[in-house]
Every structure is written in C-alpha cells, then in structure tokens.
C-alpha cells in the first residue's frame, strides 16, 4: 500500500500491466519520452523501451485504428487520447469497428485486448474543448465497455480490469481528480470487476447515483442532507456500459427515490437511460420522480463553468426535492 494520487495510480497500473505481460503497449500523442501531457505514462518508455511505449503521430482516428489492429493481432494496446474532447475523430473506429469486431466476424476475430484511456470532464477551466464528458455517446454502442473510476484505488483496479477484460474498453479518467484525489493504493496486481456498481453508503430515504468526479460532489451533498436528517444510499455506477441495473434497482426498490448526477448535458445523457430503466423496473415503488442533476444543454462554457456544473448545492437541492416531493 502506498499513498498515491490518481495519476500515480494510473501510471502504476500501466506499469503493473506492462511488467506482467509483454504484449501490453502504451501509445498516443506525447505519451513517450514526455510521459503524456498529464504524465500518466511517465517513465514507461524509459522502463519498457520505445517499442512498447511511444508517441504516435497526431491522429486520433489512426491511434484507435492502429490499436484495433494490434488488438486483433493479439496484443493489449492501451491507447491514450489526450483529451476525451478529441476522441470524436476516432468515433468511427470505436463505434463501427472496435464495438462490432467480434460480432461481425462470428467470433473469428476480436479486439478484446483494446483499452482506450482518456482524461474527461470539467472543473479545470478548460472551456468547450477540454471539459467534455462523452460517456453517453459511447453508451449507446453494444460491444463496448465504458468505465469511469472515482479515486486512485479504483483507478488502478478498474484499469487493470479493463486491460485484462476480453472486450474493448473505454476508460474515462476524471482529470480534475488527477492530482486532487489521493488515497491508499495496493502494490502489485489487483483487478476490480467491470459492469458492477458499488454501494458506497447504505441509506433508506433516497438513492444518489453518479460516477467519476461526481462522487466527490455527491459526498459533499450527502453530508449536507444527513444534517437535515435525510438518509442517502450512495452508489458509484463505475461501469456505464454494461451497467449494473440490478444494484441500482435493488437500492431504489428500498429507498423509493433516485437522484442521478453527471456533468454531461442532460438531454441524451446517460442519466436518461438509467431513469428510463429504473422507472420501468421500480414503477410501483417510486415515491417521487427520478431526478437528474446535470450540466446544461449547452456546450461547455469557460468563465461561467461554475454555474454550469452540477455541483454539490444542486445535488443537495435535488435530493431534498426528491424526498420532499
């Protein structure tokens, strides 16, 4: 065990994976000698050589296409997209190729070894193009795993889980936690399961659900509501796709109320899917409408970022409204 921030935990996960399996490769823009613009791949080139950790030319569609080919060949590519906002040129390679590779070939070929890492989310004064949370764009794509960790311990365990999972995985890293979130991280190999939500706190009045950096926001909000005497059950979804409907439904069957929060705009965001599925599953048990606390239905702003983001105050109010409905 060592105290690490999230970047260190990710770096440590990559190091662990590369040490364990020589077919694990890390690449992307500035990933090589520089160690990535956030330094998630620091020292990996020095340690494992230029063949296994390297800079690519500046072309996201190429990075993912290259990674798809490598994975089909049997390697374990871990491709970095410098910011999740820049993943869209690779959208076709991900949605039409990675996701459908196994299915269309009748399992003759697959890209199960593929992992794509990308820093995502707001809170770092990044404006339109260094703040987006694109998870919902990918969550409409059967064949993909979409995973988001909330802290260093989770980041390492889920990233190792992603690299070793036999399906292609998008791993979105909440970049505002990169240095802000610290905690104890086990040495060596451990994997956390994909597709499983985690109940972080049990409660009886309302279920509060999120992922990634929103878990911190939820914690703050829940702290406030507890002072008001409201008992919250807190769930970290962790995997957006496939998502753990069982755990969420079980919780809502108990609490009768659900508040979901994410940074992405509300319309078409993944909270919509959850709300739709849970109202269907828990219809007779719901005591108030399922509520979504999200970014506005706009591009991501800069100066008024604070106003835009679903912060703890907004989540707090939503919890209260849900309970007081």
């Amino acid at each position, binding site marked *: 065990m060592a105290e690490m921030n999230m970047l260190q935990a990710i770096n440590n996960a990559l190091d662990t994976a590369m040490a364990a399996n020589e077919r694990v490769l890390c690449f992307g823009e500035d990933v090589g000698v520089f160690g990535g613009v956030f330094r998630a791949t620091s020292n990996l080139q020095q340690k494992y050589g230029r*063949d296994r950790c390297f800079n690519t030319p500046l072309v996201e569609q190429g990075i993912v296409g290259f990674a798809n080919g490598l994975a089909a060949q049997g390697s374990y590519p871990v491709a970095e997209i410098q910011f999740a906002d820049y993943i869209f040129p690779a959208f076709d390679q991900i949605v039409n190729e990675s996701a459908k590779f196994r299915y269309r070939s*009748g399992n003759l070929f697959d890209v199960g070894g593929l992992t794509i890492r990308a820093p995502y989310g707001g809170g770092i004064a990044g404006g339109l193009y260094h703040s987006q949370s694109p998870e919902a764009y990918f969550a409409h794509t059967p064949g993909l795993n979409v995973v988001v960790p909330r802290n260093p311990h989770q980041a390492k365990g889920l990233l190792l889980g992603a690299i070793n999972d036999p399906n292609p995985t998008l791993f979105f890293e909440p970049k505002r936690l990169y240095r802000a979130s610290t905690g104890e991280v086990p040495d060596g190999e451990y994997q956390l399961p994909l*597709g499983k939500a985690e109940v972080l706190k049990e409660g009886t009045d309302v279920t509060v659900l999120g992922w990634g950096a929103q878990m911190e926001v939820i914690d703050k909000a829940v702290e406030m509501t507890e002072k008001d005497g409201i008992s919250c059950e807190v769930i970290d979804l962790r995997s957006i796709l496939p998502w753990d409907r069982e755990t969420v439904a079980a919780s809502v069957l108990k609490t009768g109320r659900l508040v979901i929060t994410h940074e992405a705009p509300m319309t078409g965001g993944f909270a919509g899917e959850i709300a739709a599925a849970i109202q269907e599953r828990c219809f007779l048990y719901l005591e108030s409408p399922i509520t979504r606390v999200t970014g506005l239905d706009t591009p991501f702003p800069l100066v008024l970022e604070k106003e835009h983001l679903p912060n703890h105050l907004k989540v707090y109010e939503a919890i209260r409204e849900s309970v007081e409905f």
Partner: protein
Amino acid sequence: MTTRKSSTVYSPVFTDGSEHRIPTFKLLKQDGSLYKNGRAPDLDKAEARRIYHAMVTTRVLDERMLAAQRQGRLSFYMQCTGEEAAVIGSTAALSDTDMIMAQYREQGALAYRGFTIDEFMNQLFGNDRDYGKGRQMPVHYGSDRLHYMTISSPLATQISQATGYAYGQKMAGDGACTIVYFGEGAASEGDFHAGLNMAAVHRVPAIFMCRNNGYAISTPVVEQYAGDGIAPRGSGYGMDTIRVDGNDILAVYQATEAARRLAVEDNRPVLIEAMTYRLAAHSSSDDPSGYRSKDEEATWHSKDPILRMKYWLEEREWWSESEEKALQESLRREVLDTMKQAQKRPPPPLESLITDVYDEVPPALDEQFDRLKAHIRRHPDAYPKSAAHVQGGE
C-alpha cells in the same frame, strides 16, 4: 529537428508533382509474351497453375453468383471481375500465413488461399455454417484459418488497422507481414492518411495495395483526386512506392515479392498502386451505363488479366484449352451444386442474435432475449425462420 539538409532556391518555384510522374511497372503483354526488357519472376509451374486456378475460380464464382442474384436467390453480390491479377498476384507473392485485410472485392485472395466454394456459399447465404453467423451482407467473408480478416463495410478502416496488426507482427518477431487492399476511392478517407503515415513512422511490415480501378461506384478518378493517382502519396510519407500494371499478373507478383522483402526484412512498409479496371458493375445494385461508356469498358475488356495469364501459360505449355474447358465446367458445376446445398441449410440459430456482442452475454441482453423468445413463442407464424428454435421453451 527540421534540420535535415534540403537545397535552396531564390525564387518562388511551385511544384505540383507533375514533373515526377511515377512510371508503371509492366512485364507481360496482352498476348502473353514478355516486354523486351522484362524478366519474369521466379514462378514455377505448380505455383503458376495455383494462381491461374484461383483466377478462374474467382471469375466463375462471380459470374454464377451475379446470375443467382439476378434470379433473386441472393440479395447482393460484388464481383472482382477485371481485377483478379491485382488481387491474386499480390496474395500469391506472400507467405500463406501473412495477414490479409481486404476491402470487399478481394475474393480472389481467398480463392487462392483455399477458401472452399462451400465456405463462400455459406457466407453468401448466411446459413448456419456461415462463420459470420448470418450477420453481415454477402461477400463479407472472413477466415482465421486462412489469415483473412473478416470484411467490414466501412471503407478504409482496415488501413490503419493493418498498420497496427503489422506492428504486432513485428513485435512478435514471427517474420510475417500484413497486406491491406483498398480502392482508390477509399484512399480519400482520413484513415488512409492515418494508416500510411503511421506505418512509415513506426516502420511496420505492411504492404498497402491500392486497386486503382478507375471508379468508386459512379465517381471517376478525376473527381476523386487531381494528382497522379495514389502512388505519389506514398513518397509523401517517405514510403517505398511502386505503380504496377494491375492486369499484369507477373508484374504484380514480382512487385509484391519485392515489397514483401522490404517489409519483412527491413520493416519498410510499401505502397503499391495497381492500375486496373472494374469490368463489372460496382455491385449487383449498380448499373454503370449511366456513368461510363461502352467504349471505355471495351478497351479494358481487351486487357483481361485472366486471358493475359492464360496466354502466358499456354506459351509455356503449362496449360491447355482442354484443361481450361474441364476446369470451367467443373467449377461451374461445383458452384451450382454447392449453392443449392447452402441455400437449403437453415439460418443460424436464434442465439446468434445476441452472442459475440461481448465474450459473454450481459444480463440485460439476456433478459431482452428471453422476452424475444417468449414473444416468438406467442407469434410463431410471424417468425418462420426461428419459431422452431424456441418451441418447447428455453
């Protein structure tokens, strides 16, 4: 960086590349004789006959299956007609374990590697023996046994994938390479640029084989690019490049053999532009009469790559008219017989709807499937293909 020496000029001279047109490599004339300065590659009789056999197989298969499509037996088909030399000549120059990543018009490569007529048919009819489990349209073949990546319809996506695949081969050190086929139309996609540039930078053992057949559906090359074809782009990436007469089996073979050496021995990727022509329609859904002339087609019919090879074989007495006749007949028969069998086979099982999305079926999808089965059980007549599968419960 940016410090490499380059010469200096003192007035603003522009180049559009036209002063260095890339020449075309040829060996074989249409009558089967060699150009005066040409030297045939080292092709023995068995290999030459294997190639020729694959070419004829491809042609016969294409003719029969187009006819079957016209009769309504098949929903869709695409012919390789006119491009058999470009495809088969290049595949033949490789090791049989090199990886092939094709676009969709390269059934000749599969025929050469030994994909059986039965295997073709099962895919074309999407029956229970189709490796692809009836999920993709006809001609989307794949074979892991033959190192032939399953075809994917989105164009050019396979190009950057080939770069990655070849990088993996280099890392594995198994002395293999990847050949990737694409049309001159697909070469306009961003993935072409990505794949070739990355291949040159990362020095992968890949051969980029462009079939320049004059058209992308109805779009002629003059509306596809303004330069001297696809080849000069290779030099732009610092990649070894060659242009070859794509209807010339010997030139294609020799160029690919040399390319493979560069790729495998020196990790130098190669771009080959094979100049050829799509003699047939783009697909069974297309009618080219609206966008090109009979004259143009006739010119290219007179350059038929299969005839050209046949004349060469005959000159060497490696092939005879009677063998030709026998082969054509037996192939036709085999295609027709096998088609009948394949068409009769049942569709893939209902489960094939939900397997292979992930390595295991996720719970939510399993639940959707249960609901579907129950639904089909209530309405068996509406789902004749699969009702039998769900009778008597899960």
